[in-house]
């Protein structure tokens, strides 16, 4: 019963975010700040993880294919497909559920605990629009983060080939171009945009509606991470079924 109530509150929150907008001159600053905190602030960790995981995917693929009948370029092909279809959009989003999600929940939750949200409400400001709407707009740039992840993942694979000699660089590059379907990139970005919506809304919900003190802020961050990850996994499954199964 509580879950049903929470789902209802979540959708009412989404509706409320777009009602009674904050003055544009103020909103502009909030959006830029959230772009800095959420997008620019995530680039470092995304670049690091993507490069090395791309390399590991290449090494694992190369090491597990020892049949001489399987062509050399398959390593590049497998890396490209893994990185574009799943690693960059889904796995990075789950990592971002931890990084961005806990930041969003704890910053909004702390504002709730210290009555800063009440202060906004008393002033007649739509606190949900003021706090959450800029995060939605900032996360429109989330596909940019995922593009960088895709590029660096594939580059990491190339570096592994070049320095680890698991397969030839030429073979890897040929594999990257082999049987390329542009719709796979479209599919990845459709997923990314939906994940961006989940990344902005679910942690905001857990921060905004939390009750209690500092301990509860920590608990809310953990809960937000769990539910954001669960939502991403479920949406990923549904979208894959809908977009790729035909």
């Amino acid at each position: 019963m509580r879950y049903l109530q929470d789902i209802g509150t979540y959708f009412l929150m989404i509706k409320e975010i777009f009602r009674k907008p904050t003055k544009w001159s103020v909103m502009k600053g909030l959006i830029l700040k959230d772009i800095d905190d959420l997008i620019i602030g995530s680039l470092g960790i995304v670049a690091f993880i993507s490069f090395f995981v791309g390399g590991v995917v290449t090494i694992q693929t190369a090491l597990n294919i020892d049949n001489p009948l399987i062509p050399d370029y398959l390593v590049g092909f497998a890396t490209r497909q893994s990185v574009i279809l799943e690693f960059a959009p889904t796995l990075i989003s789950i990592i971002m559920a931890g990084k961005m999600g806990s930041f969003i929940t704890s910053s909004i939750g702390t504002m709730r605990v210290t009555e800063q949200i009440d202060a906004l409400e008393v002033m007649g400001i739509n606190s949900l629009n003021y706090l959450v709407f800029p995060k939605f707009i900032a996360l429109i740039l989330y596909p940019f983060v995922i593009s960088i992840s895709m590029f660096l993942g594939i580059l990491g694979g190339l570096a592994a080939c070049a320095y680890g000699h698991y397969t030839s660089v030429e073979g890897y590059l040929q594999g990257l171009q082999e049987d390329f379907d542009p719709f796979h990139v479209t599919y990845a970005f459709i997923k990314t945009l939906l994940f961006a919506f989940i990344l902005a809304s679910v942690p905001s919900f857990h921060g905004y509606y939390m009750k209690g003190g500092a301990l509860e802020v920590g608990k809310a961050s953990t809960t937000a991470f769990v539910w954001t990850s669960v939502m991403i996994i479920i949406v990923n499954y549904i979208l894959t079924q809908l977009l790729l199964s035909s």
Partner: protein
Amino acid sequence: MIEVKDLHKSFGDAHILKGITTSFEKGKTNLIIGQSGSGKTVFLKCLLGLFPYEQGTISYNGKIFQNLSEDEKRDIRAEIGMVFQGSALFDSMTIAENVMFPLRMFTKLSKSEMEDRVNFVLKRVNLIDAHNKMPSEASGGMQKRVAIARAIVNNPKYLFCDEPNSGLDPKTAIVIDNLIQEITDEYQMTTVINSHDMNSVMEIGEKIVFLKDGYKAWEGSNKTIFKTDNEAVTDFVYSSELFKKVRKMYLEENQ
């Protein structure tokens, strides 16, 4: 003026406010007092429209708040200044930005006009050199003064303060009390203060509403509170030996 009639508020089965009727006058410091758990904060949050209530009316200058449209409620809220118990300053902004915030949100003043107004109110609360400090760098007393500056920067008609003296030393508490009273008088605001600081009650309580277990048990002023024989009030206000002596002396002098 704020008028409250037969206000009832519950949380689930817990009936917190049980039919409160009172009024808060313009240009006066009105105090709501009572023990912890008596319903003071809930009452204040109902007045501010932060908590919906089941029964009764709250009217601002004759306009019943609950019956107003969202736009009309917003207009009234723009006339309200609030000082929260923990100051509730936005910790991502400097002190000057905190004070400027209501101006940025609700006025079309130019940047220099806003800066002038911020300088004026910060000077009014004796915080001239604190513009660029972050709230975390300010002491409790300074934070309260910044919260007061933010609350009055937009020339509000109504000022609400939730425990403005909590966590402050007695000297700073007196400074804050005097500041609130001076501002109320100067700008002819309707000020409502939620407090259980007996010094505030005696010093600035031009009107006092005493709550007990969700009921209004007594109302009067800092003059009449010495003379009342209401047992609930005397038990609460004169619980310390010092205040018992103060009351005895006052009554002897005024016989």
